[in-house]
């Protein structure tokens, strides 16, 4: 009996742990091995390695930067920009090993696309002074520790949230909006703060019900959260992270509009997704590569904003014209600085 109980507790702990990570234990599928070719002599080819917490088809965080990098490659030419990537690097130790390997194998720029990779990067970067690193979401470049080869980047998720908030407030008739969030931290928190501000600025009477699943990959719980929001009266839904595909499925089944962020989510359900505020990383990536070519290996903070085109909103043809107009006005206001977002404590 005693032995049995321990076994059960162990299984529960394992379950809990697995439930907490998007990618348990290993990453068998696709691109997990850094390419092993020898460092090439200095030439005009830029080699970029990308470390992703989820996958290139997550229709959210990871897909957004991968898509932009591929677009940049199409623009520069495959002989000028080489890309390697590792997916499912949610666990920091796996990611740290991959970062080191990329750096040691002749990559010019290693992008660690997740807030959790920071401490590892601070340790690794000084060992490879010739290599540039980029890390986001973050505003820390490690300059205070004497590190000069890390670029920090930060998408202004609050701006994306603000514009989608304005749109949602215009769309709702019940004056209740449901937000399916992952965790109340980092980029996701910024998004929620901005969304609430956008809704409030448009129609203070609209209520936003916010829920978090405690995970980025709990598709089933995200779906149930969407169901709950609908039962609680919401007639417009939004949310961030890769797990929202579950919520989009529920929104579609109930004929309720969904508003996406990060990547273009209309691919999941075109008739349901009214708009997506997408992260367009192309210019940011271009800037980093240009700075590196000019001799700056790091030490700067870059942002994705509406002003620099790093955030764009794609609207569905089905979205009502007045709502789109209001949202576009918000985009313009954020771009020219006439709107500033004040996050209120929740």
């Amino acid at each position, binding site marked *: *009996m005693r032995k*049995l*109980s321990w076994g*059960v*507790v162990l*299984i*529960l702990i394992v*379950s*809990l742990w*697995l*439930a907490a990570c*998007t*990618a*348990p*234990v290993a*990453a*068998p*599928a*696709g691109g997990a091995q850094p390419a092993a070719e020898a460092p090439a002599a200095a030439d005009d080819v830029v080699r970029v390695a990308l470390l992703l917490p*989820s*996958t*290139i*088809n*997550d*229709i959210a965080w990871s897909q957004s930067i991968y898509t932009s990098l591929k677009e940049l490659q199409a623009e520069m030419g495959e002989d000028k920009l080489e890309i390697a990537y590792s997916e499912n690097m949610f666990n920091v130790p796996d990611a740290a090993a991959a970062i080191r390997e990329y750096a040691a194998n002749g990559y010019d720029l290693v992008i660690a696309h997740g807030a959790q990779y920071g401490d590892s990067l601070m340790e690794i970067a000084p060992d490879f002074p010739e290599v540039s690193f980029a890390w986001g979401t973050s505003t820390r470049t490690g300059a205070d520790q004497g590190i000069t080869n890390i670029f920090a980047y930060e998408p202004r998720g609050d701006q994306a949230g603000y514009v989608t908030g304005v749109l949602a407030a215009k769309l709702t008739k019940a004056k209740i909006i*449901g937000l399916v*969030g992952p*965790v*109340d931290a980092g980029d996701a928190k910024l998004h929620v703060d901005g969304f609430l501000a956008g809704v409030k600025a448009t129609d203070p009477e609209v209520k936003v*019900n*916010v*829920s*978090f*699943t*405690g*995970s980025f*990959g*709990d*598709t*089933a*719980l995200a*779906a*149930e*959260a969407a*169901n*709950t*929001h609908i*039962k*609680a009266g919401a007639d417009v839904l939004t949310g961030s992270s890769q*797990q929202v*595909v*579950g919520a*989009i*499925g*529920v929104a579609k*089944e109930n004929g309720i509009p969904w508003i996406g962020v990060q990547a273009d989510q209309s*691919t*999941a*359900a075109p008739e*349901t997704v009214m708009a997506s505020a997408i992260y367009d990383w192309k210019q940011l990536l271009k800037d980093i590569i240009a700075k590196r070519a000019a001799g700056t290996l790091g030490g700067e903070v870059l942002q994705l904003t509406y002003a620099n085109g790093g955030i764009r909103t794609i609207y569905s043809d089905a979205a009502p014209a007045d709502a789109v107009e209001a949202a576009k006005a918000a985009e313009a206001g954020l771009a020219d600085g006439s709107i500033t977002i004040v996050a209120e404590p929740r």
Partner: protein
Amino acid sequence: MDNLLNTATLIGIAHSGVRLATPYLYAAIGEMFGQRSGVLNLGVEGVMLMGAFAAYYGVFLGADPWLGVLAALLIGALMGLLMAVISVTMQAEQGISGIGLSLFGLGLSSLLLKVLVGSPISIQGFPVWQIPGLSQIPIVGPIFFDHDVLVYIAYLLVPISLFVLYRTTFGLKVRAVGQNPEAADSLGVRVNAVRYATVILGSALAGMAGASLSVGLLNIFQENMTNGLGFIAVALVYFGGWRPIGVLLGALLFSTVSAFQLWMQVLGAPIPPDLAVMLPYILTIVALAVGVKQIRQPAALTKPYERGE
């Protein structure tokens, strides 16, 4: 906050709880058969993912959702056969081979999604089917009879598995093989054949658990969409004391608390979301530690059977 405990909220919580228990029921009842015959299959998670993808892809290609379910059952059975070969015939350590199967399913389903579909695209799975008459009953109707058909089948599995386990020769053999394989063998029961049957049956049901997500509740497939659900199903078998009713109660407890915490968040109850998310897990551990006293594990669980001379 003021409407936290009114009837509509309570019905909403119960309704969500009934629905959320569905994948756990399929997976845990299937797993229970395997364990009652002495085989611990930790590969449920991977089998669920493969089943979920098979059903999703079938419907994605234009097939009827029922054909998708059939594909999930077949893929599940196939993976069960693999597990049985490894753990029954080759007598590999069951825990390790199960985890291997789990990772295999995770990797393969992710790869297939990427190669065959690309980014997740929603599909038209089973619609909600309100059972005529029954769904009109106040309170009970909206809680129990307002779901898609895979939810109803999951609950039908409970009496069916009770019957099979305790009222059929097959059930008797399963229990005998899990309790005392030597004695069963001496009475002419083919121990390994029974174990093959239960592991394949259990995996087929795990495949169906995946289908209940991808073509039932969610109508979409996403990489690793089960997110540890299969491991919770294994824990529920222990929790339920290897009995169908116990598994049902465990699944309902876990899913109802999950639903409860979602409602608390949506209604703006002043609880930190991190704490709310932990609730179902904490309560399950507490219930195990305090409530469950009389569990007797199948004596031959995880022990491969080799015929003595």
